[in-house]
């Protein structure tokens, strides 16, 4: 009994120590790295938020979504148009983006989410294509290929978030809050309903879970995350153009979800780090870098079938497992 208690305490201590170490490293990083690298970490934070939306859909509903680029775009354009043309305050613009994204997700999601499997994947791809075309066509709103520049930086407590260094300390707490909310949602009744719907859809229906409406609500939530990340992106870069919201961006978000491991929250962070940092680091190796990125992607998918998140969970379990017997041996 007592040995088990010690093991539990030890494991808890280990967890707390890991958290403290993690936060210390996080806080120290911008002081140690160059500005270019901090910038990459900022993008990783932005993509964590948007990628979490995709990962949530994939992990909890089994929906492969390629439409996240659309909501990311809606968020970015709302804040770009709202601040530079309409002169609205920044929070109002971000909220407008979130509302518009939510509405679009509801209107489009209601019919489309009845589909399943590859049909649904294709439908979300179709949405991404339509979104990209409309961003281009409505150039009175989006500036088309020229884009919109001069978007104001965010300001917080008198600090203008105009450098990667400052934005880093803003974006990651944002991402952490979003991750924490997500974690709580999964442990709530809705989370249980989601899991029931994913693992036993017919049983869930019998149990009175309104599967269709739950799927639509999840889609809306995912869209809201995409829009929020898009708005922050616009304020950070202070320039948006249609090139940032194409199919390649949608594929990038899906990569984050799958590489991270759709059912793992921490995995999303690592997935986002991979997608932002790998191309940047590899490009220092010269012209072969797109090929190396492709090969790295292949290797990661083959060797980590449940994503980075799954691999971490495995490692953690093994670490905890190796800890327990030693403690037991110490207390006869």
């Amino acid at each position, binding site marked *: 009994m007592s040995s088990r208690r010690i093991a539990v305490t030890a494991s808890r201590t280990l967890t707390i120590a890991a958290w403290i170490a993690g936060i210390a490293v996080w806080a120290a990083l911008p002081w140690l790295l160059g500005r270019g690298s901090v910038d990459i970490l900022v993008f990783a934070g932005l993509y964590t938020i948007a990628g979490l939306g995709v990962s949530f859909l*994939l992990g909890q509903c089994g929906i*492969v979504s390629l439409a996240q680029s659309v909501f990311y775009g809606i968020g970015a354009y709302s804040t770009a148009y709202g601040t530079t043309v309409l002169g609205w305050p920044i929070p109002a613009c971000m909220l407008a983006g979130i509302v518009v994204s939510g509405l679009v997700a509801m209107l489009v999601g209601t*019919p*489309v989410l*009845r*589909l*399943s*499997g*590859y*049909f*649904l994947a*294709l*439908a979300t*791809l*179709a*949405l991404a*294509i*339509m979104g990209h*075309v*409309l961003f281009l*066509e409505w150039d009175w709103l989006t500036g088309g290929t020229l884009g919109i520049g001069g978007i104001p930086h965010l300001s917080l407590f008198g600090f203008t978030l105009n450098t990667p260094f400052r934005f880093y300390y803003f974006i990651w707490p944002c991402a952490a809050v979003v991750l924490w909310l997500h974690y709580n949602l999964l442990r709530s009744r809705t989370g249980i309903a989601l899991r029931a719907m994913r693992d036993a859809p017919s049983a869930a229906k019998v149990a009175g879970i309104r599967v269709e409406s739950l799927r639509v609500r999840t889609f809306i939530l995912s869209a809201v995350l995409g829009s929020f990340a898009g708005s922050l992106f616009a304020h950070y870069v202070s320039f948006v153009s249609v090139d940032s919201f194409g*199919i390649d961006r949608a*594929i990038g978000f*899906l*990569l984050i979800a*799958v*590489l991270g491991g*759709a059912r793992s929250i921490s995995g999303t962070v690592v997935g986002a780090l991979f997608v932002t940092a790998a191309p940047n680091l590899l490009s220092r190796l010269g*012209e*072969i870098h*797109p*090929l190396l*990125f*492709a*090969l790295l*992607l*292949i290797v990661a*998918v*083959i*060797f980590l*079938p449940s994503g980075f998140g799954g691999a971490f969970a495995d490692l953690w379990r093994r670490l905890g497992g190796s800890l327990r017997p030693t403690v037991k041996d110490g207390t006869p």
Partner: protein
Amino acid sequence: MVLSLWIQAILSGVTNGFVYGLIGLGIAVVFRGARIINAMQGDFALLGGVVAYLLVHNLGWPLPAAFLAAMLSGAVCGMLVERLLIRPTARRQGTDDSYLLVTLGGAFAVSASVLLYFGRDSYVLPGIGGDQSVDVFNAAIRVHALALIVIGTLVVIALRWFYRGTRLGQAMLAASIDPDGAQTIGINVPLVRTLTFGLGGLVGGLAGMLVTPLINLHYEMGLLLTLKGFAAAVLGGLTSPFGAVFGGLVLGLVESLAIVTVSSGYKDVIAMTILILIMIVMPQGLFGRRGRMGG
């Protein structure tokens, strides 16, 4: 004048439709035999085109020989992809998403290699009948596009015969529907799966030879082709080669008629909306009775 415009739209739609269909065909072949969406199908076409270009321009091979070599190299690539990408993923219990991503990685790799070793230029591959075109009521279609349509149709017929009338074709179906059962009746399932990808690559290489004279070889063409081909294959129910070509035709015609009746700017919006509507109204796809097996 108006009539010729409509005819031109239809000819253009059919040409594009067969292009989408030929890529979709390969996706359907692989899905039928392995239950995997192959995101590299457009890149098989790119590779086939590159091989043919090198043989014709650098070694002076005649077109038909290059044609055959492109198909064979496509087949070899397909088999390599199965051995090097698909099989290791399967061994580690990959999910549907892993297969999609691993082939997507393969597609990135092909495109990046072509840019690296072949360059950014767009290369011209001579078409069947050169650059000549045929007049239909004052509208034009290239001889090569006609050849593409005829060969595409022949491939559909040949595949139908292959699945119905040959032992290998039936073994492919058996191995995908019930792998364990197939193993017990003596089918070498791993080999058959490798051959399935080989067949997909063969069709891809053929598509490359037929498509590149229309659009020129370019390192980025693979993924663009795959996207439209995927739409064609899903419309057709994913498992049926005939359905894939039909799905491609629907897509191509909707696009070109949208250009004539509405506007070229909203062409994709209209085509994609109709695509989604078709999927909602006909959840089995246009042709696959068991089209939702993907889901």
